[in-house]
């Protein structure tokens, strides 16, 4: 019996049996883990336990007795089984075993290839890819080569992988962002994983070790068969260089008498260059300083810091802003200018991916608050800076009122030694902050108004007392 016959009749059944047995044991181990406490707990998490469960399954692939088996382990298991049947595994048989696995690994159809390629090029497969043994990588690559995918199949596979990554990263940036991301991902894939034809070329290049005869000056990087072409190009270049040299020599000869006239012409570009340098530096510095500005502007969040600094005011004015949406006072929340943020929020309500949901709703909401907040701040600042007030002179503080202090719209003072807080109208505070109303004058006016109110209050009290019929003690105050 030849080795080929031995392999086909005895080894392949053993390989299949061991593979099925291993798959069964792996499945049982995974099921046992899922039913264990650790497995149940791993199914809990903010995203429905998806990420936590994936992490737990990855850890099972490292720590599990059967799930941690690599292709090398599988071959060893097959060898052990064959040993029991008195079959010696020669290097040829081992090579045939690997070839069989390559054939098994080979995609059977376009769709299978595309889905497999997309999965292996997505970030979701990072852990799996990292855990694969070198032999497994080799088998997969050979399987792919054996299938011989078309460029279209490869492109679609990589594209789907890149699109999955884009969505997993939040899917932000609109259509332009998506195209940039997918494009960059594809470009990276193209650079990092050379195609099989590139590999063949590399192999050919490696085989070319030395050249003889008229091709001995041709660099080794030039592919075999292209030496003539390269030599022709070199000849052309040499001719061009010779012509240029001749022209330069002629110009030099002609220019020699008027050398002094040409001096400023030579200096001019240098000056321009010198003056251009600081501009470049300034631009670079500006770009560095505004590193996040571009991103924030893209999401319509420029000047969000103003909203953060005035968060209290904005929150306090939120009911006003919301009512203003219906009355037309809040102009920045019109539907026409806010299609994208509103669409983002609505899309976020229907998206199941929690990361995407948070991003869509969060960014949409932040955009709307930013716009309405800025409008409200502008409204406030307009009152405080744009209005003209009648100017009052500084007065002497009435001795009845002590230590007046203004904080925001509240005046704190002691009137007749009793501490009082007085809430002032905004226009009074604005006039004070513009310097039109001195504090002492304001305090005196407040005291006068308090007395006025007290008089009205006591008159009312007296009237109430008179109308009451109750008797009081002889004298009480």
């Amino acid at each position: 019996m030849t080795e080929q016959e031995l392999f086909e009749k005895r080894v392949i059944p053993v390989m299949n049996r061991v593979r099925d047995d291993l798959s069964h044991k792996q499945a049982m181990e995974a099921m046992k883990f899922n039913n264990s406490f650790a497995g149940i707990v791993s199914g809990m998490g903010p995203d429905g336990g998806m990420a936590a469960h994936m992490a737990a399954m990855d850890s099972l692939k490292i720590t599990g007795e059967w799930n941690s088996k690599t292709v090398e382990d599988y071959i060893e298991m097959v060898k052990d089984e064959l040993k029991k049947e008195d079959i010696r595994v020669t290097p040829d048989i081992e090579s045939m075993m690997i070839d069989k696995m390559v054939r098994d690994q080979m995609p059977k159809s376009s769709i299978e290839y595309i889905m497999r390629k997309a999965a292996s090029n997505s970030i979701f497969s990072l852990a799996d890819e990292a855990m694969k043994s070198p032999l497994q990588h080799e088998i997969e690559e050979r399987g792919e080569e054996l299938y011989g995918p078309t460029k279209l199949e490869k492109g679609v596979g990589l594209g789907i992988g890149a699109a999955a990554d884009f969505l997993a990263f939040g899917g932000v940036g609109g259509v332009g962002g998506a195209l940039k991301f997918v494009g960059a991902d594809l470009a990276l894939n193209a650079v990092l994983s050379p195609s099989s034809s590139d590999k063949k070329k590399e192999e050919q290049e490696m085989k070319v070790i030395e050249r003889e005869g008229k091709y001995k000056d041709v660099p080794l990087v030039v592919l075999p068969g292209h030496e003539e072409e390269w030599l022709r190009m070199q000849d052309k270049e040499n001719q061009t260089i010779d012509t240029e040299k001749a022209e330069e020599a002629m110009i030099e000869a002609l220019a020699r008498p008027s050398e002094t006239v040409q001096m400023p012409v030579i200096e001019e570009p240098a000056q321009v260059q010198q003056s251009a340098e600081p501009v470049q530096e300034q631009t670079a510095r500006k770009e560095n300083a505004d590193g996040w500005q571009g991103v924030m502007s893209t999401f319509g969040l420029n000047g969000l810091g103003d909203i953060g600094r005035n968060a209290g005011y904005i929150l306090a004015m939120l009911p006003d802003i919301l009512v203003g949406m219906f009355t037309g006072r809040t102009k920045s929340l019109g539907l026409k200018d806010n299609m994208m943020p509103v669409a983002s929020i609505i899309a976020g309500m229907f998206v199941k991916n929690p990361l995407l949901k948070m991003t869509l709703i969060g960014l949409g909401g932040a955009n709307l608050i930013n716009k309405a907040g800025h409008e409200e701040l502008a409204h406030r600042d307009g009152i405080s800076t744009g209005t003209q007030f009648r100017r009052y002179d500084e007065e002497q503080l009435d001795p009845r009122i002590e230590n007046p202090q203004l904080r925001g719209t509240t005046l704190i003072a002691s009137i007749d030694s009793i501490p009082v807080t007085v809430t002032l109208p905004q226009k009074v505070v604005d006039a004070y902050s513009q310097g039109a109303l001195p504090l002492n004058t304001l305090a005196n006016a407040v005291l006068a108004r308090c007395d006025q109110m007290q008089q009205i209050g006591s008159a009312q009290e007296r009237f109430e007392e008179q109308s009451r019929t109750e008797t009081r003690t002889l004298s009480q105050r």
Partner: protein
Amino acid sequence: MIDPLADLDIEVQSFDIPRTVSVYPDQAGIRWWTKAWFNNRKEGEASVEITRELALLFIRDNIEKDEWLEEHFPKQMEIYHNAIQQTREQLLQQINI
């Protein structure tokens, strides 16, 4: 041009401690006492005997209420002043935050 003090509409909150004081005689009208109530407490402070002349001064409004209290209830008024001072400091602290 806006006059900021025109139609000044303010809201005043006073942090005073209510205090009531009274004078009363015995049934014969010979002995007189004064009694005070601080912070609307029902029991009130212990009565202090006064002369008939002083009682008449009070009844005729010839003496200020706080002056009367300082004279006849000095300990209570000291506590009152401390409380007012504390209130003033707390207000300033709150506003400075």
